[in-house]
């Protein structure tokens, strides 16, 4: 595993903490601010990803498209009340240059419905390209979901 300065590790951990707080605390308006503009955010199943098939479950190529997903969630789309609890583990950081790193990390998102029903809604890996700074941002976050199935619908980003 590459040796990464503690300062970089702290930046990445802080970014990921802000990321799951934005989603899990229903502060989704903060979520687009964690990305550069343009950016790439994709949710893709392992089935498609492993075969280099381009189809994504969700794909945003700019901060505007991320904002539109938040507007869809808040104003337009219809779904039952639900929240995620994210669990992250196994962070690996690989330096690219002085200001960029690639990261890989496991995620799991437990979904809780208003009825109390809980399930592991999605689990997989985050494959990131991050621009370092005191306010590090994702240039790229590819969410590779291990399961090919999505239960019911996906409206909140992973």
């Amino acid at each position, binding site marked *: 595993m590459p040796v990464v300065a503690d300062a970089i590790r702290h930046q990445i951990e802080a970014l990921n903490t802000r990321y799951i707080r934005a989603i899990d605390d229903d502060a989704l308006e903060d979520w687009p601010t964690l990305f550069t503009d343009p950016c790439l955010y994709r*949710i*893709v*199943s392992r*089935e*498609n990803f492993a075969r280099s*098939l*381009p*189809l*994504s*479950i*969700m*794909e*945003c*190529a*700019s*901060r*505007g*498209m991320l*904002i*539109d997903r938040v*507007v*869809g969630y808040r*104003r*337009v*789309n*219809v*779904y*039952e009340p639900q929240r995620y609890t994210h669990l992250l583990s196994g962070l690996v950081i690989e330096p690219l240059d002085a200001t960029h790193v690639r990261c890989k990390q496991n995620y799991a998102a437990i979904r809780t419905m208003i009825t109390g029903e809980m399930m592991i809604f999605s689990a997989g890996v985050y494959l990131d390209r991050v621009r370092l700074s005191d306010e590090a941002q994702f240039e790229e976050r590819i969410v590779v979901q291990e399961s*090919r*199935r*999505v*239960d*019911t*619908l*996906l*409206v909140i980003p992973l």
Partner: protein
Amino acid sequence: MACSAIMHNDEPLIAWPKEGPTRAPYRVMHDPDIYRLEMERIFRGPTWHYLCLDAEILKPGDYRTTFIGEVPIIVVRDAEGQINALVNRCAHKGAMLCIEPAGNRNQFACVYHAWTYDLKGALTSVAFQRGLAGKGGMPRDFDPKCHGLTGIRVENFCGMVFGSFSEKVEDVETYLGPEMAAHVRRIFNRPVEVLGYYHQVLPNNWKLYMENSRDPYHATILHAFYATFKLNRLSMQGGVALGKQGWHNLLYSAAERDIQKENYEGGHLRSVIRDVGLADSTFLDRRQEFDDGITVAIQSIFPTCNTQQIYNTLAIRQTVPLSLEKSELHWTCFGYQDDDEELRRMRNLQANLIGPAGYVSMEDGSVGGYVQRGIAGAEEDAAAIMEMGGRTIEPAPGIRATEVALRGFWQAYRDLMGF
């Protein structure tokens, strides 16, 4: 089995309401005896079922696995280039032969006791058939020719591979009828390229999704994204075409031809949200690629196959019942082999509209669950109503506020089920 006893007496499991196909009793969505009978009369009945695309199994030995109803199926191309559809079940103990969704094999060997089959399903070897050192083994009169895999009828129509358990059902083109066959030809007008798959678990009986995909009435009400961003409104020119007396249908509309804007803009539909705009609408960049001007076309092929064109997103949707109250929707999304880079990019970004996270389709994943829970414990004679656009089953050119395609589905269902 409970249903066999009832079938034997020739008494229908349910008394259909006297209003006919304008009603669907809620009981058909949660009665296990009716579900068992559907597996027999619909899925093993005189019907064709989409299995895969020809383009997915191009080389000898290429196979895909799928289901007809609950029955696991292998579709494979053999050394002669012929496509075979086989029940995915070893003739010995019934174990599933192929677990993976796709792959390439030169034979199918069962992991359990190594019974092995060729790509046409013939049993080619039985491990230790002669026993060991002259002891044990199969009886001398055991004839491998009598123990192949169960083959079913298979037909490749324009690149869509269909299978059927029925010896009686007509060929696919006749089954579809001229208008539905023409629409399949319209979509499969040149070689396709698979862009990827979605698999979505629906918390409802399979027929609730069949209703949903035949229902232009809900599309612009439930799916607020459509109406808000003027992608599809009930006031746009379009209609419903039928095939095989309503077994199949095509819902179509042309976005550039809106005949009555004020019905939306002066109305009070929740689905038209006034102060919402898109920050970056490039994912809606699109190209008119069909000469007929149709921008949204959802075709239903009875019982469980849909073809889809929503702008430049093209897909086949196949609904597989997982149990009485759970289904799985499989999407195969594709473009054409000769797509230029820009069009391929459009299809992939427009895919934000479709699938389990689609701006205009995610609600279909959940609305069946609203119904499934709503009808729990309903009175014995309670039923859904489908009188929008009248009570008959006739093509409805120029009419979109209609439930005619649902009436067609229920008529076909009753014919097959004997209800």
